[in-house]
């Protein structure tokens, strides 16, 4: 294995706009919100940025193609900007590009920005779009919740879990995220809810009800990264948040076309997790990882991700969830900021939003929801559907 990225790059600053239904904002307003906070946090000038990565996934709804919208929004001085898209995992892709460029020495200081302006589609949920000429001819007529709901039916059947018990565990996931989100001033949804409310909500895609689905939001997030040496040269003192691992695994079609995958987990997450733990030098994730932000697009996604990250035994995550293992005061606090469920899910920004929470927590800046002295944070960002997707994992800790 390659030597990896561990401790080669640190985060100089981060910013994140409030997520929500920003009827009064365009994408560039959201970008500037996140960037302004990020730049102030980094303590540098705009002109010190050597290169940028720009993530957005549903560009036809707001900024259009290319990296130009970022250059224009921030009036960046003709620097290289790369537009990245990996569906809902686009935000982590932007970070990966920025981090790798710094690690390679191609840039001293790099910027990653993710944005999505979703609330101009006219409806809830993600917009219907073409999936490519040939794919459109045979792909199922599936919504995102419908695709992820399959995890639940397959999981209940394979592990012989009573669907009612699984539904209750899924409900607990959403209740926990609402509890957490209520403490986050930037979160889209800040209302605590009850298990009964989740269980009695209208069905969206069997067995996922309304409260099993994350919010669809407008928002942006940004990170400025550099090397530890340059950070020191810039006068940065005190704790520094370092990238311990940054991994991406992409489906090759075997889940969709080969009869080995049983539909109860995400192969990509397992592959990326294994590589990320190795890159970060983590042997025992349940002990080493202090906190996580995972891609809880749907409650069942979060549930199986606990197993895919090796934080629960296979077939046991639903019990661990019900036992509170992933509550803010549990063994591995999960979605401390409310997650996609409550912080919201502006697609291209979400991966960077997850890293933002880990960054704040590691620096002790998470306010009312601050955990006590976390050492290692992990983010898990997913794009696509369980049978065809990309999964990226970032592990962060103090330098």
């Amino acid at each position, binding site marked *: 294995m390659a030597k990896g990225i561990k401790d080669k790059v640190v985060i100089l600053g981060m910013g994140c706009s409030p997520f929500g239904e920003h009827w009064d904002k365009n994408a560039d307003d959201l970008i500037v919100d996140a960037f302004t906070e990020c730049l102030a946090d980094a303590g540098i000038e705009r002109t010190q940025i050597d290169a940028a990565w720009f993530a957005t996934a549903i560009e036809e709804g707001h900024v259009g193609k290319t990296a130009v919208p970022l250059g224009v929004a921030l009036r960046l001085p003709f620097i290289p900007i790369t537009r990245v898209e990996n569906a809902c995992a686009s935000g982590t892709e932007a970070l990966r590009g920025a981090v790798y460029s710094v690690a390679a020495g191609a840039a001293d200081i790099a910027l990653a920005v993710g944005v999505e302006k979703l609330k101009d589609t*006219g*409806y809830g*949920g993600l*917009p*219907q*779009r*073409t999936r490519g*000429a*040939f794919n*459109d*001819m*045979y*792909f*199922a*007529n*599936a*919504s*995102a*919740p*419908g*695709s992820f*709901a*399959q*995890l639940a*039916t*397959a999981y*209940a*059947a394979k592990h012989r879990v009573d669907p009612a018990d699984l539904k209750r565990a899924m409900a607990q996931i959403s209740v926990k995220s609402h509890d957490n989100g209520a403490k986050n001033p930037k979160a889209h949804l800040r209302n605590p809810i009850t298990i009964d409310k989740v269980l009695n909500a209208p*069905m*969206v*895609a*069997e*067995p*996922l009800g309304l409260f099993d689905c994350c919010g669809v939001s407008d928002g942006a997030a940004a990170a400025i990264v550099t090397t530890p040496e340059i950070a020191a040269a810039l006068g940065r003192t005190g704790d520094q948040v370092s990238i311990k691992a940054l991994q991406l695994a992409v489906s*090759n*079609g*075997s889940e*969709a*076309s*080969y*009869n*080995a995958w*049983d*539909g109860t987990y995400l192969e990509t997450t397992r592959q990326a997790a294994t590589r990320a733990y190795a890159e970060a030098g983590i042997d025992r994730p349940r002990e080493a990882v202090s906190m996580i932000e995972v891609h809880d697009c749907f409650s069942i996604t979060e549930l199986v991700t606990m197993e895919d990250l090796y934080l629960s035994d296979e077939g046991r995550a639903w019990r661990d969830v019900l036992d509170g293992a992933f509550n803010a005061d549990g063994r591995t606090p999960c979605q401390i900021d409310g997650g996609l469920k409550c912080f919201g899910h502006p697609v291209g920004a979400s991966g960077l939003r997850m890293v933002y929470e880990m960054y704040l927590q590691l620096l002790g800046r998470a306010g009312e929801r601050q955990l006590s002295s976390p050492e290692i944070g992990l983010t898990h960002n997913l794009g696509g*559907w369980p*049978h065809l997707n990309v999964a990226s994992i970032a592990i962060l800790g103090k330098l």
Partner: protein
Amino acid sequence: MSDPVGILGFGGYVPRLRLSRGAAVEANGWFNRGLGSLAKGERSMANWDEDSVTMAVEAARDCLNGARPEDIAAVHLASTTLPFDDRQNAGIVAEALNLPEAIQTMDLAASQRAGTTGLIAALDRAAGTDGKTLFLAADRRRSKAASPQELQFGDGAAALLLGRGRTVADLLGSHQVAADFLDHYRGGDARFDYGWEERWIRDEGYLKIVPKTVAALLDKAGVDAAAIDHFVMPSTIAAVPAKLAKQLGIPEATVADTQFSSMGEAGAAHPLLLLAHTLERAEPGQTILLVGWGQGCDALLFRTTDALRAARPRRGIAASLEAGHTITNYNRFLAFNDLVEHEHGIRAEFQIKTPPSALYRNRDMVTGFVGGRCRSCGTVQFPRAHYCVNPNCGALDSQAPCPMAEMPATVQSWTADKLTYSPDPPTHFGMIVFAEGGRLMADMTDVDEGGVAVGMPVRMVFRVKARDADRGFTAYFWKAAPDDTRVARATD
């Protein structure tokens, strides 16, 4: 003398859904009290994703019963409700059935008699060539809301494999009479039929034109009317076949049930559908008289052979009629037949455009559901790709075309999705796993809420994937349906 020409195989298809006529009369009786006389029984009703092409494919599969005769030389499709006015519909059916490309495909249309006229022509063709002809007829009928036709009509399809050799019924003869008798007509731009008075149709039409046609046939064939064992003739006027039998001297007991109470009349397909149904029940050595009606009359005479005992469709008309699902919500019928302007919601605004170039180069996968089978490791996979999907193989360009439509499969995971747009929400889809290998995240059809479970056996069926209203295009693909040999009767 060479072997006689005749029927080598038979089959048919009646859609699963049946509209309760009582429910329709309850909805419309306030407007047309005359409908009350038609309130009994059910009519077959195509699902939203069925049309004359998809039903013809199912009828053909019923007839072929898993066999893929390489010597099929022609596919003819008769219908008055073809989905395309200018794109050969029989050609779509032939590709869905994965028949060889060196084949004659032809549509026959524009009359209720298209089924029987086409059958006579196809038998003539079979007499002059060695290859077999797959003769299909299908209709998804159109009628206005609150019309008697809405209650009289039904949707369905039939299939006959024609040729020489091991025939189950030999053609003894045929006779045709052309008469521009307008019991109804449908102009080129009209959606619906315009009909004339029933008494005139009966007395001046059926009772005069049919007898002279049949008499001429019996005379030509040298068969006595009293020797007819099965008199097969559709008619929406209930008493007509029995009246004709009496007039012609055909024993009344031989008059075949028109299946009016179970499915209604499936247009150009109906005579053939009744013929297939009769063949399911007939004994060897029996004489069958088939009559088709529409701007004249067709009469055909068949005699069944000993081979009939061994001939079986995959499922057959009787089983197809048996396994219906009764719809008592008349609004569903209106919606599925585009008889009411539904608010489809904003998600329906997105319409998938099918690029003909992409469809053409992928047509065996899309229309024929042909995947790949790796020559190195044997793994079946869909779609076919350059590299084998088996992680332990990965061979390059190793895949032979592998037809998957007939492969048994089961459900690994599923959902009932209420968010995505569907004309029949919630839309079901799931991971379908084929026993021989291969899988597909597939749309499901002909299922009800609560009717899908992990492990459920399914069968792939050719259906409408989406309709592109802006461009008048119908896109087809394969969906998973509950294994219909295990489906029981149900009501919504």
